[in-house]
């Protein structure tokens, strides 16, 4: 579809999310809200021995907030907490426009959100899932 408003990766994750569901086996959850625009997601993780065994999110929000959550979960499931926090830090660097090429490679599909750094009003939408992840992992050390 040539005239998609966002890139195909973002459009696809928004329309066909893999991780938008409840997670009965979750060991911890954390809600994240952007009060001014109404994006709200709850992140659910199954943490075992310091590793994200599985994860999901529930909630409603704009395409950017939803796709960002879905892409993030693709990336962090199977990784250690430290590794997940490292990726969150890289994501913030990318949105701040301060990321290097090799670091961008580490973010894999999340690199599709790089353009958001040029849409200041939408930065908080893109960061919501990652910010929630950081809070959740810091609470469950």
């Amino acid at each position, binding site marked *: 579809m040539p*005239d998609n408003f966002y890139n195909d990766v973002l459009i696809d994750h928004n*329309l066909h999310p893999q991780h938008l569901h409840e997670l009965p086996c979750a060991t911890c959850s954390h809600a994240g809200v952007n009060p001014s*625009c109404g994006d709200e997601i709850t992140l659910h993780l199954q943490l075992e021995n310091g590793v994200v065994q599985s994860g999901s999110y529930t909630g*409603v929000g704009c395409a950017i907030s939803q796709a960002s959550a879905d892409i993030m979960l693709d990336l962090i499931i199977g990784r250690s907490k430290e590794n997940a926090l490292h990726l969150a830090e890289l994501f913030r660097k990318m949105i701040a426009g301060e990321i290097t090429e090799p670091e961008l490679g580490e973010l894999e599909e999340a690199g599709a959100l790089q353009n958001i750094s040029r849409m200041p009003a939408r930065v908080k*939408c893109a960061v919501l899932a990652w910010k929630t992840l950081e809070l959740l992992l810091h609470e469950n050390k």
Partner: protein
Amino acid sequence: MNKQDFPVFAANPGLVYLDSAATAQKPQSVMDAVQHYYAAENANPMRGLYGLSVKATDAYENAREAVRNFIHAGSRKEIIFTRNATESLNLVAYSWGMQNLCGSDEILIAVSEHHSNLVPWQIVSQRTGAKLRFLECDKSGSFSEESLKNALTMHTKIFAIAQISNVFGALNPIGTFAEICHNNGTLIVCDGTQSVPHIPVDVQAIQVDFLAFSGHKMYAPMGIGVLYGRRELLESMPPFLSGGEMIEYVQRESAVYAELPHKFEAGTVNVGGAVGLHAAIGFINGIGFDRIQQHENRLATLAFAQMRDIPGVQIIGSSDAAAHHGIITFTVDGVHPHDIAAIFDADGIAIRAGHHCAQPLHQFLGVPSTVRMSIGLYNDEQDIDRFISTLKTVRRRMGYAG
């Protein structure tokens, strides 16, 4: 009534501005009036014993008289200048509310109210113990006389409602509601923010006790607003803010407050803003409300007819375009309002997305947020055409087939 009167369109070629319910663009005449005041008449009003200060005082008081005449108040003492409608409503809540309400009382609030006519009453409720109760509307946004009568009790001390909802655009029959309230011994505080720029408002005819509105939504500068209050109520109320300009004389432990309206205008006032508001009233009167309403209804009807044929577009509120007063709030199936607004922005069209400072209403309607387009005097058929053209592409550009 064309874009050339509004310098913002020359500075932003191609801009389609459909967010006048958030703030209106300013005509050259308003900017000229403010510029003239600061260039030729600026001094601290009310206290200088010299010619320039008298000019500034006259400019300010002439603006007050223009506002009095515009809303048909009985006296200039009933016109208080504030920063905006929010400050006006806070003045009523803090000054009247804190003094007159106690634990057994009730505050009735229309569920469609903007946060500015809700949150101050929540605070009054928390401080005084008075209970908040809500009047609900139907899905088209209208409140019935019957439901108001049923909601009022012997304890209801005040009813808070907007004359025109900033989400539905629906006009509430304030005169009838005021009569029902007064028969119950209840005051009515009316938010006129969306009505005063669009329809003739006569505070004596509709018998409101308080009316609040903002200058910036009626083509005046930001930072100037108005509270109308019935004189005997204002006389009995304590000051809201205190300090300079609002006193008669001051001793170490006490002060005698100034007469109305100055009792409620502490500190150096916004003369430039008041002068701009005066010019904006002149601008509106020069066009006349008949033409204003005709213009807004014609464009709203044009947009409405085409929006109804676009698959996935749902209009909030009445199915009659003329009942919307130039405010059309809508959703697009499967697309979040912020994505809709971003797509419009990419096409150079400014519309509002979110909860429009009316979260309880959105909860009541069962939609987390909506998109709103609202019409001003500078809009024309081409603006509506561009709005419709973009709206038709929204679902496709978000990846939906067809």
